[in-house]
Protein backbone atom coordinates (compact mmCIF):
# COMPACT_ATOMS: atom_id res chain seq x y z
CA UNK A 1 0.00 0.00 0.00
CA UNK A 2 1.08 3.51 -0.68
CA UNK A 3 1.06 6.23 1.91
CA UNK A 4 -1.90 8.59 1.68
CA UNK A 5 -4.11 6.24 -0.27
CA UNK A 6 -7.75 5.36 0.20
CA UNK A 7 -8.18 1.65 -0.13
CA UNK A 8 -11.62 0.07 -0.32
CA UNK A 9 -12.30 -3.50 0.65
CA UNK A 10 -15.50 -4.97 -0.70
CA UNK A 11 -17.01 -8.43 -0.61
CA UNK A 12 -20.02 -10.38 0.57
CA UNK A 13 -20.64 -10.75 4.28
CA UNK A 14 -18.56 -13.47 5.88
CA UNK A 15 -15.84 -13.10 3.28
CA UNK A 16 -13.30 -11.97 5.88
CA UNK A 17 -13.30 -8.19 5.40
CA UNK A 18 -13.71 -7.35 9.06
CA UNK A 19 -11.23 -10.02 10.08
CA UNK A 20 -8.66 -8.47 7.75
CA UNK A 21 -9.37 -5.06 9.21
CA UNK A 22 -9.01 -6.38 12.78
CA UNK A 23 -5.69 -7.98 11.87
CA UNK A 24 -4.36 -4.76 10.35
CA UNK A 25 -5.70 -2.80 13.33
CA UNK A 26 -3.93 -5.00 15.84
CA UNK A 27 -7.14 -6.18 17.44
CA UNK A 28 -6.55 -9.84 16.75
CA UNK A 29 -3.59 -12.00 15.95
CA UNK A 30 -3.35 -14.19 12.86
CA UNK A 31 -3.63 -17.90 13.53
CA UNK A 32 -0.94 -18.32 10.87
CA UNK A 33 1.18 -15.97 8.79
CA UNK A 34 2.14 -12.47 9.80
CA UNK A 35 0.87 -8.91 9.59
CA UNK A 36 3.29 -6.06 9.16
CA UNK A 37 2.09 -2.47 9.53
CA UNK A 38 4.42 0.52 9.35
CA UNK A 39 7.40 -1.75 9.82
CA UNK A 40 5.99 -3.52 12.88
CA UNK A 41 5.30 -7.23 12.79
CA UNK A 42 2.08 -7.43 14.77
CA UNK A 43 2.22 -11.18 15.27
CA UNK A 44 5.26 -10.65 17.50
CA UNK A 45 3.57 -8.18 19.83
CA UNK A 46 1.97 -8.89 23.20
CA UNK A 47 -1.33 -7.41 24.32
CA UNK A 48 0.18 -4.27 25.86
CA UNK A 49 2.33 -3.64 22.79
CA UNK A 50 -0.58 -4.24 20.42
CA UNK A 51 -2.60 -1.76 22.45
CA UNK A 52 0.17 0.79 22.20
CA UNK A 53 0.36 0.10 18.44
CA UNK A 54 -3.38 0.79 18.09
CA UNK A 55 -3.02 3.94 20.14
CA UNK A 56 -0.14 5.38 18.11
CA UNK A 57 -0.51 3.99 14.61
CA UNK A 58 -4.19 3.35 14.00
CA UNK A 59 -7.37 5.40 14.05
CA UNK A 60 -10.70 3.61 14.03
CA UNK A 61 -14.03 4.63 12.53
CA UNK A 62 -16.91 2.31 13.34
CA UNK A 63 -20.27 1.77 11.67
CA UNK A 64 -22.15 2.88 14.78
CA UNK A 65 -19.63 5.63 15.68
CA UNK A 66 -18.99 4.08 19.13
CA UNK A 67 -18.61 7.38 20.90
CA UNK A 68 -18.56 7.13 24.69
CA UNK A 69 -22.12 8.07 25.57
CA UNK A 70 -21.24 9.80 28.83
CA UNK A 71 -18.58 12.04 27.31
CA UNK A 72 -19.20 15.12 25.18
CA UNK A 73 -17.69 15.61 21.73
CA UNK A 74 -14.49 17.30 22.94
CA UNK A 75 -13.98 14.72 25.69
CA UNK A 76 -14.46 11.87 23.22
CA UNK A 77 -11.85 13.35 20.91
CA UNK A 78 -9.47 13.92 23.83
CA UNK A 79 -9.83 10.33 25.09
CA UNK A 80 -7.11 8.65 22.97
CA UNK A 81 -4.76 11.48 23.95
CA UNK A 82 -5.55 10.81 27.60
CA UNK A 83 -4.56 7.17 27.08
CA UNK A 84 -1.34 8.44 25.50
CA UNK A 85 -0.75 10.61 28.61
CA UNK A 86 -0.97 13.94 26.81
CA UNK A 87 -1.31 16.92 29.19
CA UNK A 88 -4.87 18.01 29.88
CA UNK A 89 -4.47 21.51 28.44
CA UNK A 90 -2.80 20.21 25.29
CA UNK A 91 -5.59 17.62 24.95
CA UNK A 92 -8.34 20.18 25.15
CA UNK A 93 -6.64 22.49 22.70
CA UNK A 94 -6.06 19.73 20.16
CA UNK A 95 -9.56 18.26 20.60
CA UNK A 96 -11.08 21.63 19.68
CA UNK A 97 -8.73 22.01 16.76
CA UNK A 98 -9.65 18.56 15.42
CA UNK A 99 -13.36 19.21 15.85
CA UNK A 100 -12.82 22.35 13.78
CA UNK A 101 -11.07 20.27 11.11
CA UNK A 102 -14.09 17.95 10.82
CA UNK A 103 -16.49 20.91 10.90
CA UNK A 104 -17.92 20.20 14.33
CA UNK A 105 -16.73 23.32 16.15
CA UNK A 106 -20.33 24.11 17.13
CA UNK A 107 -20.71 20.77 18.95
CA UNK A 108 -17.83 20.85 21.47
CA UNK A 109 -19.88 20.16 24.55
CA UNK A 110 -22.69 18.10 23.08
CA UNK A 111 -23.23 14.53 24.17
CA UNK A 112 -23.44 11.84 21.44
CA UNK A 113 -27.21 11.45 21.85
CA UNK A 114 -27.61 15.17 21.18
CA UNK A 115 -26.03 14.82 17.73
CA UNK A 116 -27.15 13.33 14.41
CA UNK A 117 -25.52 10.20 13.01
CA UNK A 118 -23.47 12.22 10.52
CA UNK A 119 -22.28 14.56 13.25
CA UNK A 120 -21.35 11.68 15.52
CA UNK A 121 -19.34 10.05 12.75
CA UNK A 122 -17.47 13.33 12.19
CA UNK A 123 -16.63 13.44 15.89
CA UNK A 124 -15.50 9.81 15.56
CA UNK A 125 -13.20 10.82 12.67
CA UNK A 126 -11.77 13.61 14.84
CA UNK A 127 -11.19 11.05 17.60
CA UNK A 128 -9.44 8.74 15.09
CA UNK A 129 -7.13 11.63 14.22
CA UNK A 130 -6.30 12.43 17.84
CA UNK A 131 -2.86 10.84 18.08
CA UNK A 132 -1.86 11.58 14.47
CA UNK A 133 -1.99 7.97 13.27
CA UNK A 134 -0.59 7.14 9.83
CA UNK A 135 -3.47 4.75 9.18
CA UNK A 136 -7.21 5.07 9.76
CA UNK A 137 -9.41 2.01 9.48
CA UNK A 138 -13.12 2.26 8.76
CA UNK A 139 -15.57 -0.60 9.22
CA UNK A 140 -18.65 0.33 7.18
CA UNK A 141 -18.18 4.00 8.09
CA UNK A 142 -21.27 5.06 6.14
CA UNK A 143 -23.34 1.99 7.06
CA UNK A 144 -25.62 3.97 9.34
CA UNK A 145 -25.67 7.29 7.50
CA UNK A 146 -28.03 8.85 4.98
CA UNK A 147 -26.51 9.57 1.54
CA UNK A 148 -25.97 13.27 2.19
CA UNK A 149 -24.05 12.59 5.39
CA UNK A 150 -22.24 9.73 3.66
CA UNK A 151 -21.13 12.04 0.83
CA UNK A 152 -19.96 14.65 3.34
CA UNK A 153 -17.99 12.01 5.24
CA UNK A 154 -16.28 10.81 2.06
CA UNK A 155 -15.40 14.41 1.23
CA UNK A 156 -13.90 14.77 4.69
CA UNK A 157 -11.90 11.56 4.28
CA UNK A 158 -10.57 12.65 0.88
CA UNK A 159 -9.53 16.05 2.19
CA UNK A 160 -7.77 14.47 5.17
CA UNK A 161 -5.92 12.14 2.85
CA UNK A 162 -4.85 15.13 0.74
CA UNK A 163 -3.83 17.38 3.59
CA UNK A 164 -2.50 14.95 6.17
CA UNK A 165 -1.30 12.13 3.89
CA UNK A 166 -3.23 9.62 5.98
CA UNK A 167 -3.84 6.14 4.64
CA UNK A 168 -7.45 4.97 4.85
CA UNK A 169 -8.60 1.38 4.63
CA UNK A 170 -12.37 1.22 4.41
CA UNK A 171 -14.45 -1.94 4.50
CA UNK A 172 -17.70 -1.11 2.78
CA UNK A 173 -20.79 -2.14 0.84
CA UNK A 174 -21.56 1.44 -0.04
CA UNK A 175 -21.10 2.46 -3.73
CA UNK A 176 -20.60 6.05 -2.56
CA UNK A 177 -17.56 4.98 -0.56
CA UNK A 178 -16.21 2.84 -3.36
CA UNK A 179 -16.43 5.86 -5.69
CA UNK A 180 -14.24 7.80 -3.30
CA UNK A 181 -11.53 5.14 -3.10
CA UNK A 182 -8.24 5.18 -4.96
CA UNK A 183 -8.10 1.44 -5.17
CA UNK A 184 -10.52 -1.34 -4.29
CA UNK A 185 -9.92 -4.96 -3.39
CA UNK A 186 -12.69 -7.45 -3.62
CA UNK A 187 -12.50 -10.26 -1.11
CA UNK A 188 -14.17 -13.64 -1.24
CA UNK A 189 -13.69 -16.61 1.11
CA UNK A 190 -10.84 -14.89 2.83
CA UNK A 191 -8.81 -14.29 -0.30
CA UNK A 192 -8.32 -11.21 -2.46
CA UNK A 193 -10.41 -11.89 -5.52
CA UNK A 194 -9.96 -8.82 -7.72
CA UNK A 195 -8.19 -5.50 -7.66
CA UNK A 196 -9.78 -2.42 -9.17
CA UNK A 197 -7.78 0.66 -10.10
CA UNK A 198 -8.96 4.26 -10.08
CA UNK A 199 -9.69 3.87 -13.82
CA UNK A 200 -12.01 0.92 -13.20
CA UNK A 201 -13.79 2.82 -10.47
CA UNK A 202 -14.21 5.86 -12.68
CA UNK A 203 -15.54 3.66 -15.42
CA UNK A 204 -18.25 2.29 -13.18
CA UNK A 205 -18.95 5.72 -11.84
CA UNK A 206 -19.47 7.10 -15.34
CA UNK A 207 -21.71 4.26 -16.46
CA UNK A 208 -24.17 5.37 -13.78
CA UNK A 209 -26.05 2.15 -14.04
CA UNK A 210 -27.89 0.96 -10.98
CA UNK A 211 -26.36 -2.48 -11.17
CA UNK A 212 -22.87 -1.36 -12.10
CA UNK A 213 -21.64 -1.55 -8.56
CA UNK A 214 -22.94 -5.08 -8.14
CA UNK A 215 -20.73 -6.01 -11.02
CA UNK A 216 -17.78 -4.40 -9.33
CA UNK A 217 -18.52 -6.05 -6.03
CA UNK A 218 -18.68 -9.45 -7.62
Amino acid at each position, binding site marked *: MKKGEILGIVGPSGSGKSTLLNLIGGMGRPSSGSVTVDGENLSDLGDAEL*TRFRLEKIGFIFQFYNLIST*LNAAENVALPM*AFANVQTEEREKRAKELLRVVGMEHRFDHLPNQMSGGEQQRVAVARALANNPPVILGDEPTGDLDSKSAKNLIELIRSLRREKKITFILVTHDPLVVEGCDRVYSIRDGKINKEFSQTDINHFKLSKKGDSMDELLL
Partner: protein
Amino acid sequence: MAYRSLTRRKAGSILSISGIVVGVTMILVLLSLASGTSASTTNLLRTAVTAQITVTNSTTPTLGGFTPPKGAFTIGSGPFGGAPPTGSGNGFSFLNQSSGGSFATFFGGGNTIPQSDADAITGMKGVYAVSPELSTSGYVDNNSVLLYGIIPPSFTEATTGLDIVNGSMLTSGNQVVLNTVLAQNLGVVVGSNVTISYSSLNSTNTGTSYTVVGIYSAGSTFGPTSRTAYVELSNAQVISNKAGLVTEIDVKTTSPSLVHSVASGIQNSITGVTASTGSSVASEASLSSSLTIFFIVMGLVALLAAAFGVTNTMIMSVSERTREIGTLRAIGAQRRQVTMIFMSESFLIGAVGAVVGAFLGIVISLILPYFSSSVSSSGLFGGILNGRLSTSLVLSNILLCMALGIVVSVLAGIYPSLRASRMKPEEALRYA
Protein backbone atom coordinates in the same frame (compact mmCIF):
# COMPACT_ATOMS: atom_id res chain seq x y z
CA MET B 1 -14.15 9.65 32.69
CA ALA B 2 -15.26 7.71 35.75
CA TYR B 3 -16.65 10.94 37.19
CA ARG B 4 -18.52 11.73 33.97
CA SER B 5 -19.89 8.24 33.76
CA LEU B 6 -21.25 8.60 37.31
CA THR B 7 -22.77 12.03 36.87
CA ARG B 8 -24.28 11.26 33.48
CA ARG B 9 -25.71 7.87 34.33
CA LYS B 10 -27.55 9.06 37.37
CA ALA B 11 -30.02 6.24 37.94
CA GLY B 12 -27.38 3.50 38.11
CA SER B 13 -24.98 5.57 40.20
CA ILE B 14 -27.63 6.59 42.70
CA LEU B 15 -28.59 2.95 43.18
CA SER B 16 -25.07 1.77 43.92
CA ILE B 17 -24.31 4.81 46.05
CA SER B 18 -27.48 4.16 48.05
CA GLY B 19 -26.22 0.64 48.75
CA ILE B 20 -23.05 2.01 50.32
CA VAL B 21 -24.99 4.78 52.07
CA VAL B 22 -27.28 2.24 53.73
CA GLY B 23 -24.34 0.06 54.73
CA VAL B 24 -22.27 2.90 56.17
CA THR B 25 -25.27 4.46 57.92
CA MET B 26 -26.22 1.16 59.51
CA ILE B 27 -22.77 0.28 60.70
CA LEU B 28 -22.22 3.76 62.11
CA VAL B 29 -25.55 3.79 63.96
CA LEU B 30 -24.88 0.29 65.27
CA LEU B 31 -21.38 1.24 66.40
CA SER B 32 -22.73 4.35 68.10
CA LEU B 33 -25.36 2.20 69.77
CA ALA B 34 -22.73 -0.34 70.73
CA SER B 35 -20.44 2.21 72.33
CA GLY B 36 -23.39 4.03 73.87
CA THR B 37 -24.76 0.79 75.22
CA SER B 38 -21.48 -0.53 76.45
CA ALA B 39 -20.99 2.75 78.26
CA SER B 40 -24.40 2.47 79.87
CA THR B 41 -24.00 -1.27 80.44
CA THR B 42 -20.70 -0.69 82.18
CA ASN B 43 -22.42 1.81 84.44
CA LEU B 44 -25.26 -0.62 85.04
CA LEU B 45 -22.92 -3.47 85.82
CA ARG B 46 -20.85 -1.23 88.05
CA THR B 47 -23.79 -0.53 90.30
CA ALA B 48 -25.29 -4.01 90.11
CA VAL B 49 -22.17 -5.99 90.75
CA THR B 50 -20.21 -6.31 93.93
CA ALA B 51 -16.57 -5.39 94.34
CA GLN B 52 -14.38 -7.16 91.86
CA ILE B 53 -11.17 -7.12 93.84
CA THR B 54 -10.71 -7.94 97.50
CA VAL B 55 -7.46 -6.83 99.08
CA THR B 56 -6.45 -8.61 102.28
CA ASN B 57 -3.35 -9.29 104.29
CA SER B 58 -1.34 -11.85 102.36
CA THR B 59 -1.13 -14.12 105.41
CA THR B 60 -4.91 -14.30 105.64
CA PRO B 61 -6.54 -17.29 103.93
CA THR B 62 -8.87 -16.07 101.21
CA LEU B 63 -11.76 -17.89 99.60
CA GLY B 64 -11.51 -16.76 96.00
CA GLY B 65 -12.53 -13.23 96.63
CA PHE B 66 -15.52 -14.19 98.66
CA THR B 67 -16.80 -11.17 100.49
CA PRO B 68 -18.32 -12.41 103.72
CA PRO B 69 -21.44 -10.42 104.44
CA LYS B 70 -22.90 -10.65 100.97
CA GLY B 71 -23.26 -14.40 100.70
CA ALA B 72 -24.97 -17.13 102.61
CA PHE B 73 -21.96 -18.80 104.08
CA THR B 74 -22.26 -20.89 107.19
CA ILE B 75 -19.37 -21.74 109.37
CA GLY B 76 -19.04 -22.97 112.89
CA SER B 77 -16.96 -21.45 115.64
CA GLY B 78 -13.37 -22.31 115.32
CA PRO B 79 -11.22 -23.48 118.19
CA PHE B 80 -8.61 -20.80 117.72
CA GLY B 81 -9.15 -17.24 118.75
CA GLY B 82 -8.13 -14.18 116.89
CA ALA B 83 -5.07 -12.34 117.97
CA PRO B 84 -6.16 -10.46 121.07
CA PRO B 85 -5.86 -6.77 120.41
CA THR B 86 -3.63 -4.92 122.76
CA GLY B 87 -5.28 -3.68 125.86
CA SER B 88 -8.52 -5.47 125.27
CA GLY B 89 -10.71 -6.02 128.23
CA ASN B 90 -9.65 -8.30 131.06
CA GLY B 91 -8.76 -11.96 131.37
CA PHE B 92 -12.28 -12.84 132.50
CA SER B 93 -13.73 -12.06 129.15
CA PHE B 94 -11.14 -14.04 127.25
CA LEU B 95 -13.30 -17.09 126.71
CA ASN B 96 -16.19 -15.14 125.21
CA GLN B 97 -13.88 -13.07 123.16
CA SER B 98 -12.14 -16.07 121.70
CA SER B 99 -15.34 -17.56 120.41
CA GLY B 100 -16.27 -14.24 118.83
CA GLY B 101 -12.82 -13.69 117.45
CA SER B 102 -12.96 -16.93 115.53
CA PHE B 103 -15.52 -15.41 113.14
CA ALA B 104 -13.15 -12.69 112.26
CA THR B 105 -10.28 -15.05 111.66
CA PHE B 106 -12.22 -17.18 109.23
CA PHE B 107 -13.65 -14.22 107.41
CA GLY B 108 -10.32 -12.62 106.88
CA GLY B 109 -10.65 -10.49 109.95
CA GLY B 110 -7.62 -11.88 111.72
CA ASN B 111 -4.80 -10.05 110.05
CA THR B 112 -4.95 -6.42 109.31
CA ILE B 113 -3.46 -4.04 106.77
CA PRO B 114 -3.02 -0.28 107.13
CA GLN B 115 -5.98 1.83 106.09
CA SER B 116 -3.54 4.02 104.14
CA ASP B 117 -3.30 1.22 101.56
CA ALA B 118 -6.83 2.21 100.53
CA ASP B 119 -5.61 5.73 99.70
CA ALA B 120 -2.81 4.26 97.61
CA ILE B 121 -5.29 2.09 95.70
CA THR B 122 -7.64 5.04 95.17
CA GLY B 123 -4.91 6.81 93.22
CA MET B 124 -4.41 3.90 90.83
CA LYS B 125 -5.48 3.90 87.20
CA GLY B 126 -8.75 2.10 86.39
CA VAL B 127 -10.02 2.18 89.97
CA TYR B 128 -13.62 3.29 90.33
CA ALA B 129 -14.27 2.92 94.05
CA VAL B 130 -12.36 1.74 97.13
CA SER B 131 -13.94 0.62 100.37
CA PRO B 132 -11.73 -0.08 103.39
CA GLU B 133 -13.48 -2.38 105.88
CA LEU B 134 -12.69 -3.69 109.32
CA SER B 135 -14.35 -6.86 110.50
CA THR B 136 -14.14 -7.77 114.14
CA SER B 137 -15.96 -9.65 116.78
CA GLY B 138 -18.10 -7.68 119.13
CA TYR B 139 -21.20 -7.57 121.23
CA VAL B 140 -24.51 -5.86 120.67
CA ASP B 141 -26.55 -5.76 123.84
CA ASN B 142 -24.26 -8.49 125.10
CA ASN B 143 -24.94 -10.77 122.11
CA SER B 144 -21.89 -11.96 120.22
CA VAL B 145 -21.92 -10.56 116.68
CA LEU B 146 -19.68 -9.95 113.71
CA LEU B 147 -19.08 -6.23 113.64
CA TYR B 148 -18.27 -4.46 110.38
CA GLY B 149 -16.71 -1.05 110.18
CA ILE B 150 -17.27 0.71 106.86
CA ILE B 151 -17.11 4.16 105.28
CA PRO B 152 -20.76 4.34 104.12
CA PRO B 153 -20.40 6.24 100.77
CA SER B 154 -17.30 4.26 99.69
CA PHE B 155 -18.89 1.00 100.76
CA THR B 156 -22.01 1.69 98.71
CA GLU B 157 -19.95 2.63 95.67
CA ALA B 158 -17.54 -0.29 95.82
CA THR B 159 -19.98 -3.04 96.69
CA THR B 160 -23.65 -3.73 96.09
CA GLY B 161 -24.27 -1.97 99.39
CA LEU B 162 -26.75 -3.06 102.01
CA ASP B 163 -30.31 -3.98 101.18
CA ILE B 164 -31.91 -1.69 103.74
CA VAL B 165 -35.46 -2.91 104.37
CA ASN B 166 -36.23 -0.51 107.17
CA GLY B 167 -34.82 2.89 108.09
CA SER B 168 -31.74 4.20 106.31
CA MET B 169 -28.01 3.69 105.77
CA LEU B 170 -25.42 4.93 108.22
CA THR B 171 -24.55 8.58 107.99
CA SER B 172 -22.32 9.57 110.88
CA GLY B 173 -21.99 9.40 114.60
CA ASN B 174 -22.95 6.51 116.83
CA GLN B 175 -25.24 4.75 114.41
CA VAL B 176 -25.62 1.07 113.69
CA VAL B 177 -27.35 -0.96 110.97
CA LEU B 178 -28.44 -4.45 112.00
CA ASN B 179 -29.25 -7.62 110.12
CA THR B 180 -33.02 -8.40 110.16
CA VAL B 181 -32.44 -11.65 112.05
CA LEU B 182 -30.24 -9.99 114.65
CA ALA B 183 -32.73 -7.15 115.11
CA GLN B 184 -35.50 -9.68 115.58
CA ASN B 185 -33.47 -11.66 118.11
CA LEU B 186 -32.62 -8.52 120.05
CA GLY B 187 -36.15 -7.21 119.75
CA VAL B 188 -35.05 -3.82 118.51
CA VAL B 189 -36.51 -1.58 115.81
CA VAL B 190 -35.29 1.50 113.92
CA GLY B 191 -34.82 4.25 116.47
CA SER B 192 -33.94 1.90 119.34
CA ASN B 193 -30.70 2.34 121.24
CA VAL B 194 -28.31 -0.59 121.65
CA THR B 195 -25.05 -1.00 123.52
CA ILE B 196 -22.02 -2.12 121.54
CA SER B 197 -18.88 -3.43 123.15
CA TYR B 198 -15.79 -5.38 122.16
CA SER B 199 -16.10 -7.86 124.98
CA SER B 200 -19.09 -9.01 126.97
CA LEU B 201 -20.59 -6.45 129.29
CA ASN B 202 -19.77 -6.40 132.96
CA SER B 203 -19.41 -3.87 135.71
CA THR B 204 -16.24 -2.32 134.26
CA ASN B 205 -17.12 -2.72 130.62
CA THR B 206 -20.32 -0.80 129.99
CA GLY B 207 -19.93 -0.34 126.20
CA THR B 208 -21.16 2.55 124.10
CA SER B 209 -24.69 3.45 123.14
CA TYR B 210 -25.61 3.37 119.44
CA THR B 211 -28.85 4.26 117.66
CA VAL B 212 -30.30 1.70 115.25
CA VAL B 213 -30.83 3.72 112.03
CA GLY B 214 -31.49 0.87 109.62
CA ILE B 215 -32.20 -2.80 109.29
CA TYR B 216 -30.90 -4.68 106.27
CA SER B 217 -31.67 -8.04 104.74
CA ALA B 218 -28.79 -10.36 103.82
CA GLY B 219 -31.05 -12.74 101.94
CA SER B 220 -29.97 -15.57 104.20
CA THR B 221 -31.45 -16.29 107.60
CA PHE B 222 -29.00 -18.96 108.67
CA GLY B 223 -25.50 -18.97 110.02
CA PRO B 224 -23.33 -16.42 111.70
CA THR B 225 -23.57 -13.91 108.83
CA SER B 226 -27.06 -13.16 110.02
CA ARG B 227 -25.55 -11.97 113.27
CA THR B 228 -23.94 -8.95 111.71
CA ALA B 229 -23.94 -5.27 112.55
CA TYR B 230 -22.50 -2.37 110.56
CA VAL B 231 -21.00 0.73 112.12
CA GLU B 232 -18.75 3.45 110.82
CA LEU B 233 -15.14 2.37 110.27
CA SER B 234 -13.77 4.87 112.78
CA ASN B 235 -16.18 3.56 115.40
CA ALA B 236 -15.20 -0.05 114.69
CA GLN B 237 -11.53 0.91 114.97
CA VAL B 238 -12.18 2.50 118.35
CA ILE B 239 -14.28 -0.44 119.57
CA SER B 240 -11.67 -3.04 118.61
CA ASN B 241 -8.75 -0.75 119.35
CA LYS B 242 -7.30 -1.12 115.83
CA ALA B 243 -6.77 2.50 114.93
CA GLY B 244 -5.69 3.01 111.32
CA LEU B 245 -6.12 -0.66 110.51
CA VAL B 246 -8.54 -2.55 108.26
CA THR B 247 -9.01 -6.23 107.50
CA GLU B 248 -10.09 -5.89 103.91
CA ILE B 249 -10.27 -3.38 101.07
CA ASP B 250 -12.94 -3.89 98.41
CA VAL B 251 -12.09 -2.39 95.03
CA LYS B 252 -14.31 -1.78 92.02
CA THR B 253 -12.77 -0.95 88.65
CA THR B 254 -14.02 1.46 85.99
CA SER B 255 -14.47 -1.40 83.51
CA PRO B 256 -14.76 -5.17 83.98
CA SER B 257 -11.93 -5.63 81.52
CA LEU B 258 -9.51 -3.83 83.83
CA VAL B 259 -10.05 -6.07 86.86
CA HIS B 260 -7.04 -8.29 86.33
CA SER B 261 -4.60 -5.53 85.48
CA VAL B 262 -5.73 -3.46 88.48
CA ALA B 263 -5.49 -6.52 90.75
CA SER B 264 -1.95 -7.30 89.69
CA GLY B 265 -1.10 -3.60 89.95
CA ILE B 266 -2.23 -3.59 93.58
CA GLN B 267 -0.38 -6.80 94.33
CA ASN B 268 2.82 -5.46 92.81
CA SER B 269 2.84 -2.02 94.38
CA ILE B 270 1.65 -2.79 97.90
CA THR B 271 3.65 -5.26 99.92
CA GLY B 272 2.08 -7.82 102.21
CA VAL B 273 -1.33 -7.88 100.55
CA THR B 274 -3.24 -10.32 98.36
CA ALA B 275 -5.57 -8.90 95.71
CA SER B 276 -8.04 -11.61 94.73
CA THR B 277 -10.64 -11.38 91.99
CA GLY B 278 -14.05 -12.95 91.91
CA SER B 279 -15.41 -15.34 89.30
CA SER B 280 -18.21 -12.96 88.38
CA VAL B 281 -15.68 -10.70 86.74
CA ALA B 282 -15.25 -12.85 83.65
CA SER B 283 -18.95 -13.07 82.93
CA GLU B 284 -19.41 -9.31 83.27
CA ALA B 285 -16.62 -8.63 80.83
CA SER B 286 -17.90 -11.19 78.38
CA LEU B 287 -21.45 -9.82 78.54
CA SER B 288 -20.23 -6.36 77.73
CA SER B 289 -17.93 -7.45 74.92
CA SER B 290 -20.38 -9.92 73.38
CA LEU B 291 -22.89 -7.07 73.07
CA THR B 292 -20.33 -4.98 71.22
CA ILE B 293 -19.47 -7.94 68.99
CA PHE B 294 -23.17 -8.48 68.30
CA PHE B 295 -23.57 -4.90 67.11
CA ILE B 296 -20.42 -4.99 65.02
CA VAL B 297 -21.46 -8.25 63.36
CA MET B 298 -24.83 -6.71 62.48
CA GLY B 299 -23.10 -3.71 60.96
CA LEU B 300 -20.74 -5.90 58.98
CA VAL B 301 -23.66 -7.91 57.62
CA ALA B 302 -25.20 -4.64 56.47
CA LEU B 303 -21.98 -3.63 54.80
CA LEU B 304 -21.61 -7.05 53.20
CA ALA B 305 -25.06 -6.61 51.69
CA ALA B 306 -23.91 -3.22 50.40
CA ALA B 307 -20.80 -4.86 48.92
CA PHE B 308 -22.97 -7.26 46.95
CA GLY B 309 -25.03 -4.29 45.81
CA VAL B 310 -21.95 -2.48 44.53
CA THR B 311 -20.55 -5.60 42.86
CA ASN B 312 -23.88 -6.16 41.21
CA THR B 313 -24.22 -2.62 39.90
CA MET B 314 -20.62 -2.61 38.75
CA ILE B 315 -21.03 -5.94 36.93
CA MET B 316 -24.17 -4.62 35.30
CA SER B 317 -22.38 -1.44 34.40
CA VAL B 318 -19.58 -3.47 32.84
CA SER B 319 -21.86 -5.68 30.76
CA GLU B 320 -24.00 -2.71 29.75
CA ARG B 321 -20.90 -1.00 28.52
CA THR B 322 -19.28 -3.95 26.76
CA ARG B 323 -19.23 -2.01 23.50
CA GLU B 324 -17.77 1.03 25.18
CA ILE B 325 -15.05 -1.07 26.76
CA GLY B 326 -14.32 -2.62 23.36
CA THR B 327 -14.11 0.86 21.88
CA LEU B 328 -11.77 2.03 24.63
CA ARG B 329 -9.50 -0.95 24.03
CA ALA B 330 -9.66 -0.45 20.24
CA ILE B 331 -8.67 3.20 20.38
CA GLY B 332 -5.69 2.33 22.54
CA ALA B 333 -6.64 2.00 26.22
CA GLN B 334 -4.36 -0.42 28.02
CA ARG B 335 -5.97 -3.06 30.25
CA ARG B 336 -4.54 -1.22 33.22
CA GLN B 337 -6.26 1.99 32.10
CA VAL B 338 -9.62 0.26 31.66
CA THR B 339 -9.23 -1.27 35.13
CA MET B 340 -8.42 2.17 36.52
CA ILE B 341 -11.51 3.72 34.95
CA PHE B 342 -13.80 1.17 36.56
CA MET B 343 -11.91 1.11 39.86
CA SER B 344 -12.11 4.88 40.17
CA GLU B 345 -15.80 4.60 39.42
CA SER B 346 -16.33 2.22 42.34
CA PHE B 347 -14.03 4.35 44.49
CA LEU B 348 -16.18 7.39 43.72
CA ILE B 349 -19.31 5.39 44.51
CA GLY B 350 -17.71 4.39 47.81
CA ALA B 351 -16.50 7.90 48.64
CA VAL B 352 -19.83 9.60 47.91
CA GLY B 353 -21.67 6.77 49.69
CA ALA B 354 -19.35 7.03 52.69
CA VAL B 355 -19.82 10.79 53.06
CA VAL B 356 -23.61 10.64 52.72
CA GLY B 357 -23.78 7.50 54.88
CA ALA B 358 -21.65 9.04 57.62
CA PHE B 359 -23.82 12.15 57.58
CA LEU B 360 -27.02 10.10 57.84
CA GLY B 361 -25.46 7.89 60.50
CA ILE B 362 -24.52 10.91 62.60
CA VAL B 363 -27.98 12.41 62.24
CA ILE B 364 -29.69 9.12 63.18
CA SER B 365 -27.33 8.52 66.10
CA LEU B 366 -28.11 12.00 67.39
CA ILE B 367 -31.90 11.71 67.14
CA LEU B 368 -32.25 8.04 68.10
CA PRO B 369 -32.20 8.60 71.89
CA TYR B 370 -35.22 10.91 71.53
CA PHE B 371 -37.28 8.03 70.17
CA SER B 372 -36.24 5.79 73.02
CA SER B 373 -39.58 6.02 74.83
CA SER B 374 -41.23 4.20 71.94
CA VAL B 375 -38.83 1.28 72.23
CA SER B 376 -40.36 -1.57 74.17
CA SER B 377 -38.31 -2.69 77.13
CA SER B 378 -38.65 -6.39 76.60
CA GLY B 379 -36.25 -9.11 75.59
CA LEU B 380 -32.50 -8.78 75.35
CA PHE B 381 -32.55 -5.10 74.50
CA GLY B 382 -35.09 -4.25 77.12
CA GLY B 383 -33.05 -5.97 79.77
CA ILE B 384 -29.80 -4.38 78.80
CA LEU B 385 -30.96 -0.97 77.72
CA ASN B 386 -33.65 -0.67 80.32
CA GLY B 387 -35.97 0.77 77.66
CA ARG B 388 -33.52 3.49 76.77
CA LEU B 389 -31.39 3.69 73.66
CA SER B 390 -28.19 5.49 74.25
CA THR B 391 -25.74 6.31 71.49
CA SER B 392 -22.30 7.76 71.64
CA LEU B 393 -20.62 9.18 68.56
CA VAL B 394 -16.90 8.65 68.42
CA LEU B 395 -14.81 10.28 65.69
CA SER B 396 -12.78 7.11 65.18
CA ASN B 397 -16.03 5.18 64.63
CA ILE B 398 -17.16 7.69 61.99
CA LEU B 399 -13.84 7.52 60.18
CA LEU B 400 -13.80 3.74 60.48
CA CYS B 401 -17.25 3.47 58.89
CA MET B 402 -16.32 5.82 56.05
CA ALA B 403 -13.13 3.90 55.39
CA LEU B 404 -15.05 0.62 55.47
CA GLY B 405 -17.56 1.97 52.95
CA ILE B 406 -14.82 3.03 50.56
CA VAL B 407 -12.81 -0.16 51.01
CA VAL B 408 -15.88 -2.34 50.51
CA SER B 409 -16.85 -0.40 47.39
CA VAL B 410 -13.36 -0.62 45.91
CA LEU B 411 -13.13 -4.33 46.73
CA ALA B 412 -16.54 -4.88 45.17
CA GLY B 413 -15.31 -3.10 42.05
CA ILE B 414 -12.22 -5.26 41.60
CA TYR B 415 -13.91 -8.22 39.94
CA PRO B 416 -16.04 -6.20 37.50
CA SER B 417 -13.06 -3.98 36.65
CA LEU B 418 -10.82 -6.93 35.91
CA ARG B 419 -13.59 -8.49 33.87
CA ALA B 420 -13.86 -5.29 31.87
CA SER B 421 -10.13 -5.16 31.23
CA ARG B 422 -9.97 -8.81 30.14
CA MET B 423 -12.46 -8.31 27.34
CA LYS B 424 -11.02 -8.83 23.89
CA PRO B 425 -11.53 -5.62 21.95
CA GLU B 426 -12.83 -7.23 18.76
CA GLU B 427 -15.34 -9.36 20.70
CA ALA B 428 -16.42 -6.46 22.84
CA LEU B 429 -17.00 -4.41 19.69
CA ARG B 430 -19.13 -7.05 18.03
CA TYR B 431 -21.40 -7.07 21.07
CA ALA B 432 -24.32 -4.80 20.22
